[in-house]
Structure formats: structure tokens, C-alpha cells
């Protein structure tokens, strides 16, 4: 045995921070490279924002349409990345043994999950920047407390991530693909994204308001359109979903 060969053992894990950063960068690149994911996270929210702001299809109540639509589309952007996109990507990573292979690498499992969250947050920052620029160009005049907006976005991300990972870690990849897209569509319509919830009958409305998407879109709208302070009710709903979703994902997620 020589000590100087090409393959001579010199094992060791990279520093944790570097591993997580590398993993987050790779996950983000995979997401931005995937056409279907971009359709979901960028094209659909942008189209909805531009279309409904410029063409009078839905009655968005008093004031400029864009002031109603921009908060809803931001909520949709968060859902598309944290829930739909993350569920589909993670489901297929599980199916193709990516999660399994990474579990044998020096990166701990919690490190992989942290990297996934970072990648979701980076993507959301890019989405929000793009949608904000477009909305401002369409005459959006946002108001309200930026801290409240930040809290809503973070809690919304946590709530949707928990639900997305729960789905990805328990269902088959194909089932996750179908279900995540269906849920996206249903919540797009019934979650106050572009259609005001007051268009629904009273009974349906009280249920729809408890959905995470409604809490996020409603909360963002309260703050950004109406200049409300802390939307405590919506924050509470999102916190409940986040705790329940992440706990269930932690309990039931299967890596293979």
C-alpha cells in the first residue's frame, strides 16, 4: 500500500456551512433549470398579474385592480415554490434515490432540509422581486408595515413547505405530481388569489378563509392594500398550518 496514490484515503466532511450552501445552490439551480417548475413559479403568477390587471375580467372591488391582485399573486408565488414546486421536486428526488444517496454523504439530513428551505427562500426572493417590479409598472401602490409582510411570507413559506414535504415524503412521485398540481389549481381559484373570497357563498367562505393560501393572500391584502397593522388572525392560521404540516412531515416523511 502506498500513501501517495491518487486515491489514497483522506476522508473528511466539508465544513457544515459550506455543505449546506453548496446543497442550496444546487437545489436552486435544478429548480431554475426545470421548465415545468418555471411555468408554475414564474410564468403563471406573472401572466395572472398582467392579465387580470389590464383586462377587466374579475370584479376586484374598489380601487385599482393591481392593488388587489399584487398581494394575491405574491401569495400564489409563495405557494407555487414552497408547496407545489417543492413537493414535486422532492417527490421525484425520493423516487430516483437522490435523497437516499445524499443520506450516505457527509451532509446530515437536517442539513439537506435546511438547504431545501434556503433554496425555496432564494427562489421566492427572485419571484417577489420580479412580480414587484411588474406590479409597480402596472401602477401598484403598496402600503403598510413591511415587518407584517415579512412575517406573513415567512410563515406562509413554512406552512406550505410542511404540507409539500408531507406529500412528497408519503405519496408516490406520480401521485405527488398530480395532487400538487390539483391542489395548486383549487387553491388558486378558491384561495382569494385572483377571485375575491366574498364572491363565494357565506358558508363556503368561512371554510375557505381557514386555508393557508387564503390566510396568506388575505393577510397580505390587509396590509399592502388596506394598510392594516399586524394581521394577527391570518398569522395565527398560518402558524397553525406550519406547526401541523412540519410536525406531520417530520413524523411521516420516508426517505426511500
Amino acid at each position, binding site marked *: 500500500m502506498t500513501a501517495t496514490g491518487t486515491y489514497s484515503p483522506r476522508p473528511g466532511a466539508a465544513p457544515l456551512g459550506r455543505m449546506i450552501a453548496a446543497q442550496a445552490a444546487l437545489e436552486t439551480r435544478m429548480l431554475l433549470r426545470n421548465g415545468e417548475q418555471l411555468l408554475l413559479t414564474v410564468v403563471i403568477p406573472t401572466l395572472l398579474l398582467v392579465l387580470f390587471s389590464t383586462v377587466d375580467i374579475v370584479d376586484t372591488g374598489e380601487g385599482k385592480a393591481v392593488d388587489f391582485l399584487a398581494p394575491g399573486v405574491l401569495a400564489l408565488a409563495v405557494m407555487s415554490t414552497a408547496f407545489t414546486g417543492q413537493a414535486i421536486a422532492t417527490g421525484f428526488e425520493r423516487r430516483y434515490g437522490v435523497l437516499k444517496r445524499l443520506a450516505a454523504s457527509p451532509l*446530515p439530513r437536517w442539513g439537506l432540509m435546511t438547504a431545501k428551505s434556503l433554496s425555496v427562500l432564494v427562489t421566492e426572493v427572485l419571484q417577489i422581486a420580479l412580480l414587484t417590479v411588474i406590479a409597480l409598472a402596472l401602477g401598484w401602490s403598496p402600503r403598510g408595515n413591511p415587518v407584517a409582510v415579512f412575517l406573513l411570507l415567512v410563515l406562509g413559506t413554512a406552512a406550505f413547505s410542511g404540507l409539500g414535504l408531507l406529500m412528497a415524503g408519503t405519496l408516490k412521485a406520480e401521485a405527488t405530481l398530480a395532487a400538487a398540481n390539483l391542489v395548486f389549481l383549487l387553491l388558486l381559484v378558491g384561495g382569494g388569489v385572483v377571485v375575491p373570497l366574498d364572491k363565494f357563498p357565506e358558508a363556503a367562505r368561512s371554510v375557505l378563509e381557514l386555508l393557508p393560501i387564503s390566510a396568506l393572500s388575505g393577510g397580505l391584502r390587509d396590509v399592502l392594500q388596506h394598510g392594516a397593522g399586524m394581521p394577527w388572525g391570518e398569522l395565527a392560521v398560518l402558524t397553525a398550518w406550519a406547526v401541523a404540516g412540519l410536525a406531520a412531515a417530520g413524523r411521516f416523511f420516508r426517505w426511500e
Partner: protein
Amino acid sequence: MHSDPAVPVVQIQALVKRYGPKTAVDGLDLVARAGITAVLGPNGAGKTTTVETCEGYRRPDAGTVRVLGLDPVRQAARLRPRIGVMLQSGGVYSGARADEMLRHVAKLHAHPLDVDALIERLGLGSCGRTSYRRLSGGQQQRLALAMAVVGRPELVFLDEPTAGLDPQARRATWELVRELREDGVSVILTTHHMDEAEQLADDVAIVDAGKVIAQGSPERLCRGGAENTLRFSGRPGLDVASLLKALPSGSSAAEIVPGSYRVTGDVGPQLLATVTSWCAQHGVMPERIAVERHTLEDVFLELTGKELRA
């Protein structure tokens, strides 16, 4: 950094692993030392389950497993940086390029190999910007192998590393595995190819129905069972008794069918020379002379009563 050669790289005692009502591994014992160990057996013998228990993926239902002296489940964080893993399939983002994935795995290690050199060495340069899902099966296999070694591990687990490869690619993989050993990396590989175990391994563990039924160097395993055989054809009715007298004791010689002769015993160069010189003395031209070495295939057949590639 080398593992202590006195400590086995893998030590498995009475391992049991069940999946529901099915017992995949049934009281398996295995000690693997530095070098190349092949875990050989038919599909469903429990090879992958055994290896995946060593890699920390499976929790034993009974028995103990130690890899580099560590418990693969409870001491996973200490073990993982020291081992390299090649899964039987998959393990790569379907949208990632080969070099991108390899560079990523390299970044998870403190002192990785030179990625460009490894890409060159395994002929992965031709993959270019192709995403993983569009690579050929052979390219996917080579990438998985590269990912297993890029972190400069002490011990590499290769699960069916040459399954589905063409002969040239198989030889290239064998060559790399030999280089790993030369540089002091231990290798545990599973295979259901006899020739792979025979060509490559210092030590072979034959697994059947969840147990190790024989273990040793390929030479020792092949010597252990029936004797080797030499066959030749000549004119019918040769004086077999006279031939037998020329042979070392313990040999046998017989005319199986007229004109077809079989000699068994310690068939080596000396015995071959004895047979041919006897033929020369008796004016016999031995045609179609053939030495049949006892192979692992025969050993497996004797031990289990079944063909390996059923």
C-alpha cells in the same frame, strides 16, 4: 490516513433483517478485511440488504454490524465521511449534468479528488452538458462510481458496479477498483457475476438465502471442492493403466467414451507435461486437449445445488 489493518473494515455477526413476513438476511456472518471483498450470490440472496445495512440505511432486526469499527446507524455522522457509496441505481438529480453532480459531491468532502482528472479517468467528459436522465446506462453507472470515490474514502461499497455494462466498460471499472486497492482503499462489492468475483476479489463471500455459505480467496474456494479435470481425444483403446502409472498418486484416468479421455487430480503445468510426454512416448496425438478448472460457478453449484444464473 489509513484504517488500522488489524481491524476488519466490516464485521457482521448474526445479522437478521426482515421485510414484513419475508426474511431477507437470516443470521449472516461476515468479516471483511482491507482489500477487495466480493459478496457473490444470486438475485434475492440478501446482498443488497447486507450492504445497505453496512451503509446505515437499514436497522438490523438482530445481530451486530460494525463498519470501520463504528455502528452504521448510531455513529452514522462519524462513519459517513469515511465511506463511499454506489447505489444499484439512481442517486442523481434527473436534471443535473454529470460533472455538476460530481463537483457537488466533491464539495461535501474536505479533501476531494481532482474532479477533472476523475472525469477524464472515467471517460465522463463526453457527457458534456447532457442531463443525467439522458445519459446512457453505462455513463450513469460510471458517474455513480465516481461519486463513490470522489470524497477519498477509506472504504467503498459498490452495489452491482458493472450490471448492464458492456465488456469494455466492465474492464475499465475493474481497473479502477484495482487502482483503489493499490492506493489503500478497501472495497466491498456485490455481484452475481462469477468472473467478476474471480478476477477482482481478494476475498469472496458466497451468499445464498440470507446467509454466507462459504468465504475465502477465489483460489481457495475453487480448490476446496471437486478436483480439476483434463480432457483430451486420441485414438480409441489407449492403455489407460499405463497412463495412470505415469501420473502422480491421487490422480485418475479413464476413457469416458471411445477415443475420449479424462484425467483428474492436481491439474497443473506438471501434470499436463506428464500427460503430453506419455502421449509422445506412445505415439499418440492428443487432440482437443482441454483443462477444465474448477470455477466459482462449480463451487456455487456444489454448495447450493443450483445454478447461479438461474
